[in-house]
């Protein structure tokens, strides 16, 4: 299993949005610099997240991005689906070596069933883990938070 950088960046961006300051105009660019995500790439990811129902966007002056659901209702699985479209690529569907093995040796429907149990378990785990859970982890770790009026831009 390999999580793409797109999924990683999408999860970190959504987490960042929910973790840092509230009520002051925070810039999307701040997330870009803090998380080390190239701005153009972040924009693309945000657009996918909007299409996937994870974020809402408002255009024009005073516009921006917000979570479409509370953090407790946003799972990492939702973010994978919004950015990748499916779990296939993460779980071997795109692995040609695995495909060859599967088609040559089997015949073996058993293998597919066993593998689908793995896919099912990983999918369940990603769907059960929410942004709220990540906020708890960050709190517990004492991750420093951007303070009100202390925004930085590069």
């Amino acid at each position: 299993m390999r999580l793409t950088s797109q999924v990683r960046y999408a999860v970190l961006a959504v987490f960042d949005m929910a973790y840092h300051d509230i009520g002051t105009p925070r810039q999307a660019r701040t997330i870009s610099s803090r998380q080390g995500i190239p701005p153009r790439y972040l924009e693309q990811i945000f657009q996918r997240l909007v299409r996937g129902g994870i974020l809402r966007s408002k255009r024009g002056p005073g516009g921006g991005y917000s979570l479409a659901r509370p953090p407790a209702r946003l799972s990492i699985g939702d973010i994978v689906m919004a950015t990748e479209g499916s779990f296939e690529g993460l779980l071997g569907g795109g692995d040609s070596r695995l495909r060859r093995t599967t088609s040559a040796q089997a015949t073996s429907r058993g293998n597919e069933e066993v593998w689908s149990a793995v896919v099912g378990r990983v999918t369940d785990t990603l769907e059960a883990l929410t942004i709220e859970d990540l906020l708890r982890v960050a709190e517990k770790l004492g991750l420093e938070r951007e303070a009100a009026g202390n925004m930085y831009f590069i």
Partner: protein
Amino acid sequence: MGQPSVTVRIPPPLRKYTGGKEEVPGSGNTVLALIADIETRHTGLRERLLDEEGRLRKFVNVFVNDEDCRFLKALDTELKGGETISIVPAIAGGCIALRREHGGVA
């Protein structure tokens, strides 16, 4: 009799007002009344949520269960009791790359 009781989920940046609690109880007929109620026990929260004119700050979203109250009746959204209210930050900016290249501040 009493006002409808709800559960309010507090985002990490505002937990300093709730003694670190993720969740606090509150009551009120509307979102606005609820904010006034929690302010009585957690002084300072109201100012972080509402601007000088008493409107919901631009980069604050309040969800009633899973719905953003801006898509309902905003602060006048009625509460029946039993709902989970979540306070969630939002961010400014769109076309990040473009603005950055032009050196502008959104």
